[in-house]
């Protein structure tokens, strides 16, 4: 089967790749572009470990085919920090011990960033429902929520 040529933007950089028409964006990122920060926990859109943004919208990259990325702007965990400067969501996850094994963490950080860009001051319930598509088996979510609220405050310019 002939491969499809795709041009898109990934973390701000114009990127070209060739993929099988049935290859997922997750597989393209991990296997062809070396961006292994996005994880596969289920391959069926249930766990959120592969979360990316597509034109700003939170998406499971395991449910999107490579050719669908044509012309799109994709954000992955590798693009969240600016150089060696961590994004507030990343630094608050560390400060609040919001990760144990760290496997779900990239997806949760991408999802949290997307939440806070849209809703700078979510209630606890809003944050919990937004993150309900990101499974974490280690933490019980408690410290994740603490990190989300601390990051929201930091992004609003309030001192934590």
């Amino acid at each position, binding site marked *: 089967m002939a491969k499809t040529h795709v041009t898109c933007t990934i973390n701000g950089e114009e990127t070209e790749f060739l993929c099988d028409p049935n290859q997922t964006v997750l597989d393209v990122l991990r296997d062809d572009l070396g961006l292994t920060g996005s994880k596969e926990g289920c391959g069926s859109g249930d766990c959120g470990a592969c979360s990316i943004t597509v034109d700003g919208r939170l998406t499971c990259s395991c449910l999107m085919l490579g050719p669908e990325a044509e012309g799109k702007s994709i954000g992955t965990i590798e693009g969240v920090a600016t150089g060696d400067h961590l994004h507030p969501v990343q630094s608050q996850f560390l400060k609040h011990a919001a990760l144990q094994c760290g496997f779900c963490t990239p997806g949760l950080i991408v999802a949290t960033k997307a939440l806070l860009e849209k809703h700078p001051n979510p209630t606890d319930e809003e944050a*919990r429902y937004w*993150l309900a598509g990101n*499974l974490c088996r280690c*933490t019980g*979510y408690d410290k994740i*929520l603490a990190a989300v609220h601390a990051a929201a405050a930091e992004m609003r310019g309030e001192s934590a």
Partner: protein
Amino acid sequence: MNDISLKDALKVVGTRPVRPDGVDKVVGRAQFGGDATMPGMIFGATVRSPHAHARIKKINTAKAEALKGVKAVITAADMPEIVSEEAFVGEGPMNFRDLSNNLMARDKVLYDGHVVAAVAASSMSIAKAAAELVEVEYEVLPHVIDEIEAMADGAPVLHDDVFTAGVDPKPTKPSNVAKRVEFAKGDLAAGFAAADKIIERTYKTAPVHQAYIEPHACIAAYNADGQCTVICSSQGQFMVRAYCAKLLGIDISDIRVVPAEIGGGFGGKTLVYLEPLALALSRKAGRPVRMVMDRVDVFRGTGPTSGGTVKVKLGAKKDGTITAADAEIILQAGAYPGSPMGPAAMCCWAMYDIPNARAVGVDVVSNRPKVAAYRAPGAPISTFGTESAVDEMARELGLDPIEMRLKNAAKNGTKALYGPTFQNIGYVETLEAAKAHPNLQAKLGPNQGRGVATGFWFNIGGESSASLAVNEDGTLVLVSGSPDIGGSRASMAMMAAEILGIEVEHIRPIVGDTASVGFTFLTGGSRVTFATGMAVCEATNEVVKQLRGRAAKIWEIDVEAVEWRDGSAYPAGDNAGKFEPLSLADIAAKAARTGGPITAKGAVNAQGAGPGFGTHVVDVEVDPETGHVKVLRYTAVQDVGRAIHPSYVEGQIQGGTVQGIGWALNEEYIYTKDGRLDNASFLDYRVPVASDLPAIDAVLVEVPNPRHPFGAKGVGEVPIVPPMAAVANAICAATGVRMTSLPMSPPKLKAAIDAAGK
């Protein structure tokens, strides 16, 4: 040197620094099992049985081998036949032959999802296509899924060489009952005769999966010279090495296992599923082979923990004094013997000082995947029964559930039913802390109820190794053999920093591969902070001794006259004040002239792990229309000995508690009539999500364990023990309905409420 056993003197232990591996994990750079690559690697896939129980008549691999891009196909014929032998490599009972047959079925498949062949090809899509081309001819056999049905006369017998062990006389016929164990003390009949009230109940629990988010993954290379490298995520690189060596007939020294970051384990990664297959494929193909499971195969082919039946009989006086307690715990082992019925029996009454008690464990095979360890293996199942019964007794007698437990609580000097006499335990302290917690004063509304339950786990020690090396600039590298699942690198570095009197950031902790650190038993049993921590402390104390020796040499005084504090050597005694203190960096810079590199090793077989106890309080609201349970408040109190890094201790308690809430309310394996797993996805196997839960208040009680340099006890397993009973007790308080079967899912609870006419 400061007395590090005094909490007030601690400068690093008990603080909350950012974990040393943290940045890698928040920027997506951490390398997990499925992230590693090797030059020339190819991709492996498995062929799995669609039948619950069948004889393999023939396997034809010709079509698969003929597919372009296929490099190797293996079946059991490519694996050495292993003789029956007890293995003490992982957590819980295991037999090398059974493990081999579980990896790759030899004569019979014993469950839906049992591997029968594996293929390796130049791409994952070709490997999957080739797996479809492997033709397996089966003779389908009758199957049995439920443990009680498996025990019945006339049930399909899985193994013709399993004769119930632990009964006298030895049975003459094989059966699905693999083993019976019993722990007993006192006189049960007299104890029940002395009781004013007796409660007798049978409880059922469903098997639940560990449900780590990272599926099993590895990459393995078998070189032409017989040297093997395996990179994988597991709870023990030495465990993977031992199993691969044994199951493939390779010398241990020819295998190097490099631990990748591990994406959750909870006991489920204490054995192997893929690594020996990947090595066997690599041997045949002459290329490195990567294998990554998909989620469906994780559910069908790995874990879970047992489901089971728990029969409880409890007798007490009117004042709440328990006079007799009896429990029989019948656990599913899955396809091969080895359920955690032993610890289930040992743990279920351990919270209490009961004069007449018995706990019986029964191990039953059926056509399910072989069970694997899951957080406090067995204890949550048996304790769901016993702590539900204790709650019911308190309710019947009109007693407060915490007071009832205080009245019968195990204390220092109590001889546990399973043998040892407790020392330095903090059970009563957890009950008292729960009693004083604001959760108990919170007002409850209509359809709301409060439940209390407690739990116990032994915690273990065992073999661990660590090494510490002083770098040229006075910073240090700390290598240990324990895979870090929940932040243990942080706690290892913190203990070393405390002893050295330096900032934790000056120590870089890593997890060594099997060729770079001494043998270390796997991460499990809540042993790492305790046992590996002791190895780290031993290595660090030796480095401090060497540093004092180097300072003594520089000053030309006796080593006994050198004191180490706050990261520097000071002249002491008659020499006090005679020389300027030498910092770690000063001594490191002069290392070459004072004797060479400063390094030390710690190697321990740690004994004296302090047992752990927890008390949980939960408030729930039940929707009588739907049977849905909302958890409103949750307080989990636990004796942790001493929290090295309190955030990660709290995290263990919160995470374990939430797994318990999932076990209580949602999680279960559902089988079709023909024995196939019907809910092998995260959509249908419902683990708790953020919106299901309230904040989980983890309350740390510290009753130090004197056998550990800082007083640490294991913390990871206790928190999953009480939640199922705590939630059931809360549901009973809210509705008056006593649920005795897990999960307490909406349809089941709704039916129970309707049946009770409430």
